[in-house]
């Protein structure tokens, strides 16, 4: 963009630069939702397979008000929170130790490489055989699902820190445990936090996937029961709600990290 002199010209130039930033996203979202609305109404797609957007939104409001919805969300959230917390409590120390102590890395890393492509969510069927369809299986599958990204990111974080930091801490006579908590963990934090962001997404996937494979309570079961009963509108409403919850959790996490650790640079 050419630099122009004079206030009005500058204003116009800036407006010209900013207008697409506001207009284009609004336009594309409006077009997408508009297409979703009119395609079933004009018969481009059958409204039994894609109900119009406005009807889905009305159903979203209705579903949110149903008494069963809250309790199902609560039981899913409980499994998710507990599983993620335990995976974090195991994964961060393990990964950090791997980053600082080579033999542990040599022993653990090959196991992670081999188990990484296993579809963890499917293991719920085996967990149920071993431990029945209770809390142990439900929480265990979440831990299994999101442990690897936490370990790997903590490893990378702890492995890549400036050696000088560790030397100075050692030179100041700080013991190994305090060194880990006060020096290594903070230095590895950016990587650990991006691993946690990934773990949040994977753990939600695992909760929902395991609930749909082994029904019972929980939001995943609620959603797939609607599918089995042929309640198309409810299915679309549930998909919209759950997708939005996943999006919001990610947004909240990123904002919370940015607010509480303003010194972090780059992407989370």
């Amino acid at each position, binding site marked *: 963009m050419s630099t122009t002199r004079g206030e009005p010209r500058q204003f116009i130039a800036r407006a010209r630069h900013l207008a*697409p*930033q506001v207009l*284009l*996203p609004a*336009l*594309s*979202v409006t077009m*997408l939702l508009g297409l979703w609305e009119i395609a079933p109404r004009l018969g481009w797609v059958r409204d039994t*397979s*894609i109900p119009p957007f406005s009807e889905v939104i009305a159903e979203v409001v209705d579903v949110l008000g149903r008494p069963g919805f809250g309790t199902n969300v609560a039981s899913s959230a409980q499994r998710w929170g507990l599983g993620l917390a335990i995976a974090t409590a195991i994964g961060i120390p393990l990964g950090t130790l791997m980053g600082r102590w080579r033999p542990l890395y*040599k022993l653990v890393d*090959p*196991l992670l*490489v*081999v*188990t*990484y*492509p*296993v*579809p963890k*969510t*499917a*293991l719920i*069927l*085996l967990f149920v*055989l*071993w*431990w029945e369809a209770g809390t142990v299986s439900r929480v265990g599958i979440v831990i299994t699902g999101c442990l690897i990204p936490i370990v790997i990111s903590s490893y990378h974080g702890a492995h890549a820190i400036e050696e000088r930091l560790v030397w100075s801490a050692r030179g100041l006579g700080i013991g190994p445990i305090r060194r880990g908590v006060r020096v290594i963990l903070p230095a590895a934090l950016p990587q650990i936090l991006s691993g946690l962001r990934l773990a949040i*997404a994977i753990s*939600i*996937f695992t909760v*929902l*996937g395991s609930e*749909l*494979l082994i029904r019972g309570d929980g939001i*995943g079961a609620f*959603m*797939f029961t*609607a*599918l089995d009963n042929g309640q*198309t509108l409810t*299915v*679309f409403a*549930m*998909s919209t709600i*759950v*997708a*939005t919850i*996943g*999006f919001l*959790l*990610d*947004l909240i996490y990123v904002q919370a990290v940015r607010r509480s650790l303003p010194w972090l640079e780059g992407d989370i």
Partner: protein
Amino acid sequence: MSPAAVLRPVVWVWWRVYPFVVILALWWFLADRGLLGNRFVMPPPGDVLDRARELFDDGSLVDETLVTLRSVFIAYGLAMVVGILLGTLIGRVRAVRLALRPIVSFLFPTPKVALYPAMTIIFGLGASSKIVFGFSEAVFPILLGTAAGTSQIEPRLLWSASSLGTSERQSLLRVVIPAALPSILTGARIAMVGAIIGVFLGEMIAGSSGLGHMMAVAYRTLETPDMYVAIVTVSLIGYLLDRTFLLARRSLLAWSAEEAP
């Protein structure tokens, strides 16, 4: 030869088989002691291997594996095409980036499993819905990797290309994509496993064939060894594809400083 030189290949091989040895030993130990349940719930590796051989001999294991592989490759191929095309547009064209940003940033962190029921209604119970599941898991890592890579290209590379007479369209293929390749391939590796997980879960939820269906049926009919055969097979496929991918990546990026995985 010095003893160290003799030992080196042995050590190399050991670290390659070591994880499998550990997993099999642990599995055998748990089954032998009955720590997770009886022989029915937790058959030892030998029983599962026998069952796998039976299923291999009657051809059903090969058939189900081929069904799953076919869906995985179609899903992955589509995700590569769409992800690289859209990702490059997002990375290089400001208007596209602005227009697609809200949609991509909503869909990327969303657990795609939330959309499975709606996609099942739209795409039916056949193979196409499994392909769509695999695609939805695979496309975003590729798309975001490509967008990140193509948007951070050294302007000097493009200036030199154009001063040497390369047209804009040519420099896209000769400069932009190669320079973005490390980032594209990082996304593509995650996407490979994503495609497998999406297809496998899809087959478990509502399928009539494939390894996922085999596992779900075995659970319902209590043919527990079949469940182990299915999940071990799909995991091995994932492992082999992941290893192959890393080898291909190494030769593709031999010129790059970012070759290290």
